[in-house]
């Protein structure tokens, strides 16, 4: 039985997708792939790329951290913030990266962690974009954001 994937943020339900073959998520212990019949699991996520495989197509999403729950082939992602690859604005992500880098360079200890987190987020956003580009643009569009 294929997976059902839901990506939910505090502000909206980004995606509900049935018949998913595999979900690859940025777990806090490293990237993890979830196939059907996975054992029940709850893991925290770090900022990174979430890939959804379905019918030989791949879709990229950016998640900025949160949790992932697997329970009887239902995969639920509780994200702090999440975007579909096509929603990411390259210029804004790049600007955010530069801003975070500058802040990090002159950061005092208190700001350091925040600047680092911001930098990680922007780098991961750019990475999602890069993967998307390398795959050749939109490709097979399946899970369009609903909101």
């Amino acid at each position, binding site marked *: 039985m294929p997976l059902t994937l839901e990506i939910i943020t505090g*502000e909206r339900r980004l995606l509900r997708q049935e018949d998913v073959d595999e979900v690859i998520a940025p*777990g806090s212990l490293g990237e993890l792939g979830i196939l059907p019949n996975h054992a*029940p699991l*709850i*893991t925290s996520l770090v900022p990174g790329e979430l890939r959804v495989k379905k019918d030989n197509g791949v879709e990229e999403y950016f998640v900025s951290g949160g949790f992932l729950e697997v*329970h009887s082939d239902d995969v639920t992602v509780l994200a702090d913030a999440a975007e579909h690859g096509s929603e990411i604005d390259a210029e804004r992500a790049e600007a955010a990266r530069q801003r975070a880098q500058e802040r990090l360079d002159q950061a005092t200890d208190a700001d350091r962690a925040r600047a680092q987190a911001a930098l990680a987020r922007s780098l991961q956003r750019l990475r999602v974009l890069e993967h998307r580009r390398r795959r050749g643009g939109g490709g097979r569009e399946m899970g369009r954001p609903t909101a």
Partner: protein
Amino acid sequence: MANTREIRRRIQSVENTAKITNAIQLVAASKMRRAQDRALQARPYAEKMQSVLGHLSGVAGDPETAHPLLERRDINETTVILITPDRGLCGGLIANLERHTGEIVLGPEAGGSGDISMIPVGRKGGDYFQRFGINFRASFQELGDYPGLAETQPISRIAIDDYTEGRVDRVLLVYASFVNTVSQVPVTVPILPVEPPQTEDVDSSGETQYIFEPSPQEVLADLLPRYVDLLVYQAVLEASASEQSARMVAMRNATDAANDMISDLTLVYNKARQEQITSELLDITGGVEALKG
């Protein structure tokens, strides 16, 4: 009898008022729909989070010691996060909230449980309680009609910091809960220490054994601050729906009252006008009669 010109001016002024209240009513109605929508959209996330928290609290060890945010202490200081509108013209909503909060601050609940401090969110509540010299740990205004998590997070983070650093031993959230369009009730929700939801949902009957990565304790440590963020975010959304619906109802009543007043005044005006005409006619006929003489 008031003269007709004066009555006409009065009608004009009431009509203008009715136009304004009607406009506010329409705006509030559309904002209310959107605020309700957003509150609804936040629900799936909240439900899921509660279920995860429920699963966790069973396995993360003694709930009292598993995480600082779960720890119950003797209460020396309570912080009340009071969510009120920034603007008035919303009927009894603000007064109800203030009275409700006043009962916590002065009432038996506070008796013996130490000092009270506040984090007012929204101008009205802050203005009111400032007069009583209550210590504000922070204050927030103008969150906008549709605040996002990014706007409400600073509120919850202050509460979390104060709690973990031991400055505050209990945090209560006071806001107007949205019952329906005509009814909004002030409620008090304790948010810190966190009380994990009871795992009596359908899931737990199956006794699923979850694998937790990195560990139940670490997932819990990640989850709890976000849970508090969410409670505050949801309260702000609901308070916003309450504010808009209270305003809509209040302004509808005001428009109705203005229209009643207009019809009453129109009646008076017509009577006065007729009286004037009658007396003018009497004058004329009287004059003619006199000329005939």
